[in-house]
């Protein structure tokens, strides 16, 4: 059976070049980079190279500003908890949004529950963007951190990061951004955008799983959350995940070299997919921003049907996608992002997310456009809601 993978925002396949770069670090260069001897020093040099590649990809001034982590979620935790503890004496207020990844939302809830931190959750408009005036109004003399995602993982909406950076810098508040979905898809420059901290994850841009990084601008102090070693300039104890870090560095190098091309290619595929769905299936809603949107993201609600049924049917035809329906989130409520942009529960249950990657082809999009309308129609014919309105 034909198989088409359209869930690249969940994870991407590791590029063969990346795997190849990693392999010698399992066997040949196996030393602990913290060791004094040649086995360790030998590896340490490559870790530094990886650090430089990651720094370059995000426009950091110095590679010492990169802390390697186990992924995006850990980077979010380290940034938010690290600042909350370090700035305890300055204040206890964090500003975030209603549509963050749970890596940010649950960390904020933890701080609220156990450390008495106050959290403001900014609302978003129908396209998923915050209002800058809301942000300015929310800042108080107790505000220690603004954490707003670069681009949303579900609906692909890109936030006005430049402007947020300006506001934060002017008000003297630190700005962290979860850029897990943006890195490797659109240009990101921490210096130009006045970003103080940034989370990224390797496996979202064809690197390996289990490795990510937190950028921390020089001069920003945070309390580490992993204790037990002097690694990462005492900001994250634990033996280096050497193979992962090498893979991340290689993925960063390739992502930077291919960024323009990838952005163009995915934008073409994305727009073909959106247009194709709009032409073939009636009564749909495109979720997210029409233009300020990640090149890999398509998110559509099909009225009168439910997301899990849709995913199962697509899976039977070899298409891998995801949904924000309750059944796929493991809770009773559909996606918090879809509710935050103002969708009703009923409509949010019928969402489908198709996310593109570097290996997708136009032919695959044609296949999806061939299969999807029939699947939607089959489910609609089965739906009591469909008839009720016809």
């Amino acid at each position, binding site marked *: 059976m034909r198989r088409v993978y359209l869930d690249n925002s969940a994870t991407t396949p590791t590029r063969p070049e990346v795997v190849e770069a990693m392999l010698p670090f399992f066997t040949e260069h196996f030393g602990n980079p913290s060791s004094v001897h040649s086995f360790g020093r030998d590896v340490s040099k490559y870790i530094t190279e990886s650090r430089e590649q990651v720094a370059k990809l995000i426009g950091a001034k110095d590679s010492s500003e990169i802390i390697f982590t186990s992924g995006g979620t850990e980077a979010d935790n380290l940034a938010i908890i690290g600042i909350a503890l370090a700035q305890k004496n300055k204040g206890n207020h964090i500003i975030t949004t209603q549509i963050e990844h749970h890596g940010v939302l649950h960390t904020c809830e933890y701080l609220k529950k156990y450390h008495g931190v106050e959290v403001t959750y900014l609302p978003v408009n129908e396209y998923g963007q915050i209002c800058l005036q809301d942000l300015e109004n929310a800042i108080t003399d107790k505000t220690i951190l603004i954490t707003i995602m670069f681009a949303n993982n579900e609906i692909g909406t890109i936030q006005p990061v430049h402007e947020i950076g300006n506001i934060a810098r002017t008000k003297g508040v630190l700005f962290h951004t979860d850029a897990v979905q943006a890195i490797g898809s659109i240009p990101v420059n921490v210096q130009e955008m006045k970003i103080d901290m940034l989370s990224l994850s390797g496996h979202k841009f064809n690197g390996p799983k289990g490795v990510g990084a937190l950028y921390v601008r020089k001069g920003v102090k945070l309390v580490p959350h992993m204790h037990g070693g002097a690694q990462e300039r005492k900001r994250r104890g634990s033996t280096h995940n050497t193979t992962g870090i090498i893979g991340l560095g290689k993925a960063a190098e390739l992502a930077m070299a291919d960024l323009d091309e990838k952005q163009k290619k995915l934008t073409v595929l994305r727009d073909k997919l959106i247009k194709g769905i709009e032409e073939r299936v009636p009564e749909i809603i495109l979720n997210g921003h029409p233009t300020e949107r990640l090149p890999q993201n398509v998110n559509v609600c099909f009225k*009168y*049907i439910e997301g899990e*049924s849709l995913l199962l049917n697509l899976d039977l035809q070899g298409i891998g996608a995801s949904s924000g329906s309750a059944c796929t989130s493991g809770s009773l409520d559909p996606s918090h992002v879809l509710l935050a942009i103002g969708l009703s529960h009923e409509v949010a249950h019928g969402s489908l997310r198709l996310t593109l990657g570097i290996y997708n082809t136009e032919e695959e999009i044609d296949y999806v456009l061939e299969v999807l309308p029939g699947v939607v129609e089959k489910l609609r014919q*089965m739906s009591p809601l469909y008839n009720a309105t016809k």
Partner: protein
Amino acid sequence: MYNEKVMDHFQNPRNVGEIENPDGSGQVGNPTCGDIMKITIKVEDGKIVDCKFKTFGCGAAVATSSQVTEMVIGKTVEEAKKITNKMVAEELGGLPPVKMHCSNLAADALRKAIADYLGEDFTEEEHDHHHDIEED
């Protein structure tokens, strides 16, 4: 996640549709939690001779609806009244635990349709609609 029998009912649902001028009709669930089932029945000489369903919901919701229609056709109204959600799930060879409460409503819809036919009051089975985490 789903067993073969559930997937078979999901892929090839039996008795989809709505009986015209049914003898009984029952709809349960609500759009908020993402599952709505509507069952219509035709009754002749105290026996259910036809049963059709329409469902908005996940794989388990579709499969249980399809299953209940198969279980009920040919049964007397009195026999059909005794079918529970649990029996439907068992007939399917089991459902994932998380689906047992939220999407397993097909027997409710059937009993509501029977109550409609008999002109009786209908009370839903007890459901835990706040299944926060059901670790297995």
